[in-house]
């Protein structure tokens, strides 16, 4: 018996489709049920339908909006810093890297370490008695900022995130930079174009699509941040570092408000999907 191509396709697709139906389809159904119900860990198996009440609770919760604002700021600021630093490192170090490929390996180490571990490591590094950073501040300046206090914690986690993920932007820019055809550069240098002008007029425009891609990916990753902030400071002093992901986690596991957490997750899904669709449309236009 010979199968039709259509039947063959269905068979080839079935493992993945089944996998997704079970592991994502089921949770989607649960999300919808619990999003519209009242439930706690005690009454987990008997959710009570309450309509849109959970969504009203979430939208009226000022911490929800604070978390959204935090994630947005964190995503935008870290994405910008990472792109600027990554672009600089890629372009400035490219001539050196052409001869010494191993340098790339050294610079991408932070990305291979778990963000949760990086968060924990900063707890040690910034600790007022055991940490080297406060030690050197005292040694050199006779004074040390309290990095995890309400006033400074945001800057601290922005720096931690930026230092871990600049390598990602660096890697994308390096690849894009190396892909610029050399005859473009040669033609320009025959015309006597100086390096600085060469970068802005010729190389930078070639790398613009990559800039959008890197910025967008880093923004998305910054927006959904959880691991490193959670292991470094948790929700932070006075909840000041509650990102959207941390908000949902705390609503769910700490406070046991399952319906409310689920409603917040559904809202986050809608927002994230809208941002994704918009970003992809913009990128397609840019290309």
């Amino acid at each position, binding site marked *: 018996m010979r199968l039709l*191509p259509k039947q063959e*396709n269905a068979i*080839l*697709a079935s*493992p*993945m*489709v089944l*996998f*997704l139906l079970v*592991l*994502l389809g089921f*949770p989607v159904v*649960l*999300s919808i049920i*619990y999003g519209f119900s009242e439930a706690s860990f005690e009454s*987990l198996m008997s959710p009570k339908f309450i309509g849109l009440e959970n969504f009203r609770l979430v939208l009226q919760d000022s911490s929800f909006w604070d978390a959204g604002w935090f994630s947005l700021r964190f995503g935008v600021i870290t994405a910008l810093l990472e792109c600027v630093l990554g672009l600089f490192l890629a372009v*400035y*170090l490219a*001539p050196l890297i052409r001869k010494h490929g191993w*340098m790339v390996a*050294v*610079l*991408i*180490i*932070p990305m*291979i*370490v*778990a*963000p*949760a*571990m*990086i968060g*924990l*490591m900063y707890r*040690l*590094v910034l600790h007022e008695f*055991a*940490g*080297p950073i406060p*030690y050197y501040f005292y040694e050199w300046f006779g004074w040390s900022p309290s990095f995890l206090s309400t006033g400074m914690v945001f800057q601290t986690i922005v720096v*931690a995130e930026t*230092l871990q993920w600049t390598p990602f932007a660096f*890697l*994308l820019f390096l690849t894009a930079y190396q892909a610029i055809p050399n005859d473009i550069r040669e033609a320009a240098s025959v015309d006597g174009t100086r390096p600085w002008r060469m970068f802005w007029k010729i190389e930078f425009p070639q790398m613009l699509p*990559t800039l959008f*891609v890197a910025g967008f*990916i880093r923004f*998305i990753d910054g927006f*959904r941040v*959880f*691991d490193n902030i*959670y292991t470094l400071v948790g929700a932070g002093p006075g909840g000041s570092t509650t990102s959207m*992901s941390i908000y*949902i986690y705390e609503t*769910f*596991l700490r406070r046991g408000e399952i319906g409310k*957490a689920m409603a917040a*997750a559904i809202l*986050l899904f809608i927002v994230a999907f809208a941002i*994704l669709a918009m970003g992809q449309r913009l990128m397609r236009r840019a290309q």
Partner: protein
Amino acid sequence: MKLHQILRWIVFVIAALVMNFPVLATFITALKSPAEISRNPSLAIQSPTLENFMTVLTVSDRLNVYHYLWNSLSAALIGSILPIIVAFPIAWAMARRGYGRNILFPLIVNLRALPLVIFAVPLYLMFSVVNLLDTQIGLGLVLAIVNLPLALMLLVNAVSEIPIELEEAARMDGARLPRLIGRIVLPLCRPAFITTFVFGFITAWNEFLFGLILTTQNAVPMTVGASFFFATSGGGVQWGVAAAVMIVAALPPLLLGLIMYRKITGSMVSGAVKG
């Protein structure tokens, strides 16, 4: 020219030191004795010792690092191999016949960008119904979802790069689809399987949120287990031991990643640009 070259080296060294600072400082602290940590928090270590690593690698009631390592290993293996198995057949149909190109492929690729916490809550509820909470299999299955999008992208790429003439020649010889895929396509995709596996393994090993929510005791992975050492249970944190635990926890993905860094960087870039 010479000056520029020196400046570039200086920039590289500074960037490498600053970006790797937490890892370096943790490593140095792990080599200090408790007495030295309280006396000398600087990076200039006076008398290096392996004492902390010995404590970590010795099983005691308070601490069994092998338990966490085993949990991470088994969950990460499931989470990195399963996506390859389920994605490979459909990757061929997508690459060669454009199957699911308009809806299924973009849908799955976009999953990658969603905040994981969205799945965490419903998966917790589902797992409590089917008794998969706090099991390595349960955690492994979830990590497989996390890795599926990139696995699919890399495999679709790999199949489309195989010269179609090879497949056509096999068809001329009368090979049917199962034979064609099993004998021609599968062996040629081996490098892509390795890349996908390594990348997926590192991602799975480093995952934290699902481990935190879906496990409590039996299946706690290394990332979550390491954070327990910072829970101050009387007497404060033992910084040397905690630092050694973090190094042990970070080492497997680090070694794998450094050995295979060319493949890792390649798949990161293609994953980013094609998505």
